[in-house]
């Protein structure tokens, strides 16, 4: 056992300073899609570039991308690099579904329940208990949520603790588009959580259904079943992106 402790100590400190210090993704990291301004209206055919229908071209030829649908495949960047680009960013979460669309038009605010949670969190010395439920993810979201408690991210330093019991939980992290068989377990889990509480949709599948949205087997996103306080897009979102969402839900970051 001592050998393990020595081995652990020899590693030194590797934990991120986020959110106190900025954490920058590796160069070329595909964190989100941004729209590049171009003179003149865009052709409506740009829409067809996206396998999940995230690209919109309005009547005036203005292009927008709904990050809540985007699976970060890069098909648009490959076909129209003058219009679309990857940005190496982690902080992509937003407090409303509309605010996931870029360029951003919707100003997002925290819902009343989550607002109360934020106030209470401050009063309680910022200790927050988190619970997760999988509603049909591809399995990668679970890895990225688990990673929050590894030494690189260690969110316990920020007061986020994992709890097994929904009755002890303040925040529910939901992954997946919500399959038929998981609809009722999701509703029951949310029901038994005491108020105030917040719900975070983790990943593009949880935000909109993503590629799994077609067909009648899923609810096409968590907000088809329950109100969502914070949306984190990404396929899957990186641990820092999920941490950003936790901080938004508890009012410790404004955007």
């Amino acid at each position, binding site marked *: 056992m001592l050998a393990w402790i020595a081995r652990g100590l020899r590693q030194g400190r590797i934990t991120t300073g986020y959110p106190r210090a900025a954490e920058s993704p590796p160069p070329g990291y595909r964190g989100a899609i941004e729209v590049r301004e171009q003179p003149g209206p865009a052709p409506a055919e740009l829409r067809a570039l996206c396998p999940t229908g995230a690209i919109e071209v309005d009547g005036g030829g203005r292009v927008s991308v709904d990050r809540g649908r985007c699976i970060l495949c890069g098909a648009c960047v490959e076909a129209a690099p003058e219009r679309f680009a990857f940005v190496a960013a982690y902080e992509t979460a937003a407090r409303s579904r509309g605010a996931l669309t870029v360029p951003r038009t919707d100003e997002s605010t925290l819902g009343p329940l989550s607002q109360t949670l934020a106030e209470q969190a401050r009063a309680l010395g910022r200790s927050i208990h988190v619970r997760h439920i999988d509603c049909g993810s591809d399995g990668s979201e679970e890895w990225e949520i688990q990673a929050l408690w590894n030494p690189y991210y260690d969110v316990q330093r920020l007061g986020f603790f994992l709890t097994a019991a929904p009755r002890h939980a303040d925040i529910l992290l939901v992954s*997946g588009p919500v399959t038929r*068989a998981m609809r009722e377990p999701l509703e029951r889990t949310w029901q038994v959580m005491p108020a105030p509480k917040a719900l975070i949709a983790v990943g593009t599948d949880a935000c909109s259904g993503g590629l799994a949205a077609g067909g009648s087997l899923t609810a096409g996103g968590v907000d088809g079943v329950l109100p969502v306080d914070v949306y984190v897009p990404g396929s899957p979102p990186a641990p820092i992106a999920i941490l950003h969402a936790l901080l938004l839900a508890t009012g410790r970051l404004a955007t």
Partner: protein
Amino acid sequence: MNGAAFDLPGAKREPAPPDEVRLRLGAGEFDRGVRALRAAGARFVTAFKTGAREPTVAGAFALHGELIILSAPLEPESLAALAGFWPAMSWPVRELLERVAPDSVVGGPRLTEPDASRIDRGVTGLDVFTIPYGPVRSGIFEAIQFQIETGGEDVPRIQTRPFFKHRGMEARFEGLAPERAVYVAERVAGIASAAYACAFSQAVERALGVAVPARAERWRAVYLELERIACHLDVIAKEAETTALYVGQARFQILKEQVTRLRARLTGSRFARGVICPGGVRFEGTMELDELLGAVDSLERDLHRDRHLFNATASMTDRLIGSGQLSRALIENYSAVGPLARGSGVATDARHERPYGDYKRLGLRVVTRPEGDAMARVNVRFGELSESLRMLRQSIDQLRRSDGALLAPLPRSRSGAASGWVEAPQGELLIWVELGRGVLRRVHIASPSLRNWALFDHAFPKDVLTDFAFIEHSFGLTPAGADR
């Protein structure tokens, strides 16, 4: 690799890509073919519906380094009987029948439509109760349910209930061009994105007769082995967590995060998504190869020390030795694959049985252990980590020395059908694709997770309830792949 050719009298041999043998049987003969294959020592892989005009059942079997695809007119009654004849066929055949001939399935709960609140009792006796564990798990785990019948310690009966996560992913492929459909493949089982993308791409390439450039095959092997390393480290970290060996857990989590970050440096995605595609790979890895090699070396050094400590920690190994014993006979009856099979002495590995891509050159040493317990399955993974690092170094070295094309063009508007396979971290993955005029018409996925989970019900012969988590993690499966 090829041994004696399997001979089935009365079967019509149809043209097929290399390593694949297609045998067509007449009405009422599927049963005979399956029995002959089992008698010949074949491993069952999957069963699925095919055929454009008349409904046809196809069964895939691995035998002597070949994949045998047996097809015949689909007759629900005789198929249902086969589910009882060969345990390996039970779940796949039940799934097939529930989907294509629901009227033929009578009585009993449906495998593919689980109900979280339904509780089964199979064992009666004083103080025996049923614990429905899942689909909401006590931690950050994927959704699946286990109905555990126990008197408190002994576990006389466990029933695994998959399909809570069924998203209908196979149908999501239909109508898409292969270049776009690979995005669906990557999201069937996200922790094995590269394996799914690669198996799907290989199936398309085999169906259309496309030769992949050698350089693309090397990059694919790099992503596949990095993925295997991440998955194996995940299993080992979870075993350490279950014993409350927190420093050990942290060590293996650190290594896993390092591998994940390497993949992000190489591809922009922490799961190496968006790079493997039908025809090859989309781009060169965006990291200096010397630096990548240095990272592999440092990973190997750290892993060597942590493995030594792990094996020297009695509180860790005591919980794994003898837990979740699976006999060789059980593995063979269920046609189990991956580290699960190799931990019971069955040397099955798709990279070795039917080598594909760079594995034709890499010369894999298949790691097996004879004990059949959770410790053996962890030791197989430790052995495979070393082997993966060795192959990584070899592939990277070849990438450094040579240059070449990354992508072969796919012929437009062509039709064809073929299977593609990859040894995913969880075991052999097979994807069957049918293309019509350049778009996907049908896709069937045989995931290692679904096949291996059928064995979980038998993994508690001498074990008690508190061994549950150790045994579950030693299986190392993903419900997303099983449920699709």
